[in-house]
């Protein structure tokens, strides 16, 4: 099963309360995904030349100050921006690639959940309601966000196996469905230099997008490539620095509904999650067509 939600703010009052709306949407999807939950929130871009990392530590007593000091020593500047449950967001005076490489080398016990200038990813095992509370999701503001509630089928219930999966700088993917050619495709992508942290099928789709984008495809072309190269069932939602995209496989047995008002665009596995948004009763609502890429982007976002 699994549940997916996405919210794209078109009005300031939605941006200010993005976390609250996202939390309400996510909790509605509890019955589709009771074993883990996660979100990617796009907020507070950092200036060019610096980067934002979301790190996860399995140690509940992690001393984040030491990580901050290490990064500061290496790059000249670093601040812990957020501490939320098992995750920390650090802003580093370095390009994301360099900062991420430092963490992987110096602190292999930590996991880089996301890297970029805008994205923050939080995900954890447990019910969506517990997740919303322990990560204080309701107080987040932001321009757009994706969320996922997981009912695991292809791999273990772990923090790392939860969605969203980061697919590159400021990119992330959430998935409802299951892929059947992920083992072979993972091997192929590894040979192409794409790194994987889990045995999860969705991470392979994320890696596939990262690879296509690295090879020069646009987001739209990369998603169209999924239709050729991925075998299985999927509804994908992909987050980028300035928007999000939705794609369903050609068979389209995994559900999705889209809705739009003057103030927001939303996608969800079921209407229940959209019904909690302000003005939902008057929203234009439709089911995305199979094998069609839908993209929303913010105009004039310089990232």
């Amino acid at each position, binding site marked *: 099963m699994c549940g997916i939600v996405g919210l794209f703010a078109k009005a300031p009052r939605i941006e200010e309360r993005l976390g609250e709306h996202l939390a309400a949407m996510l909790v509605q999807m509890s019955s589709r995904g009771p074993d883990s939950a996660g979100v990617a929130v796009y907020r507070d871009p950092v200036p060019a030349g610096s980067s934002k990392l979301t790190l996860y530590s399995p140690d509940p007593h992690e001393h984040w100050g030491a990580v901050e000091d290490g990064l500061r020593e290496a790059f000249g500047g670093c601040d812990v921006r957020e501490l939320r449950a098992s995750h920390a967001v650090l802003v580093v005076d370095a390009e994301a690639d360099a900062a991420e490489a430092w963490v992987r080398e110096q602190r292999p016990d930590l996991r880089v959940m996301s890297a970029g200038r805008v994205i923050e990813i939080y995900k954890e095992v447990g019910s969506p309601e517990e997740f919303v509370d322990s990560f204080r999701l309701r107080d987040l503001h932001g321009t757009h966000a994706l969320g996922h509630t997981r009912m695991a089928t292809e791999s273990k219930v772990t923090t790392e196996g939860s969605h969203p999966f980061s697919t590159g700088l400021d990119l992330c993917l959430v998935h409802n469905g299951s892929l059947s050619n992920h083992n072979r495709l993972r091997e192929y992508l590894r040979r192409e230099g794409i790194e994987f942290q889990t045995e999860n099928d969705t991470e392979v789709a994320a890696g596939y997008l990262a690879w296509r984008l690295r090879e020069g495809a646009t987001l739209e072309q990369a998603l169209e490539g999924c239709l050729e190269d991925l075998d299985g069932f999927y509804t994908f939602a992909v987050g980028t620095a300035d928007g999000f995209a939705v794609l369903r496989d050609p068979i*389209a*047995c995994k*559900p999705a*509904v889209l809705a739009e008002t003057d103030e927001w665009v939303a996608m969800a596995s*079921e*209407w*229940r*999650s*959209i*019904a*909690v948004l302000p003005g939902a*009763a008057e929203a234009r*609502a*439709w*089911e995305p067509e*199979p094998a069609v890429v839908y993209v929303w982007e913010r105009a004039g976002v310089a990232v």
Partner: protein
Amino acid sequence: MAVATSEAVEVVDLATTSVRELNQRLHDLARTPGPRLWRILNPNGAHALACGLDADLEVEIEGHVGYYCAGMNKRATVRVHGNASTGIAENLMSGRVEVDGNVSQSAGATGRGGLLVVRGNASSRCGISMKGIDIVVGGDVGHMSAFMAQKGCLVVCGDAGDALGDSIYEARLYVRGKVAGLGADCIEKELREEHVAQLRGLLEAAGIDADPTEFRRYGSARQLYTFKIDNAGAY
């Protein structure tokens, strides 16, 4: 509201009443007399609304509904004044289900009787494995509609998606617009007078204004394995 009468209407607000409680009250009417007219507020995409009814009721649902609304319905009329998600009127036995908006996949799946009317579009697999239900769609239907359809009629006033009527048995398919592609063993057939008459009756019953002579008829070529007498012993 289609209910124009002074008869009392029982109003249930799902903002304050659970789906379980609503359905139990509706189910009790199969054995115990009670209100005939119902109005359901704030459905907000909840699943399994007004399922398994077995009484001469009229249920008006004011908003969008979730999965399997009015499933297994007998005798009752259920009207959704909004959109419906997966499996509206699944296994309909008799009575009538009407949706003002669009419906998601598998509308009227496995239905054995009664009438399903969709004023908007239906998504993929509309009427999959239908076994006697009549379905009238004002707009388009998605891919794999009427897959393995056995009995009943699917009327599509707009276009039909890919693989219409794949592996169809005896159901009749009427489409006014374009058909993206026919499924295995589904062919176009002559629209004779008896079909025009049947179509006129269905459109009238659905309250949809369309000229029955503008439709084309599709059905089974009866060439698949299951139709060969030599294979009868294989089952």
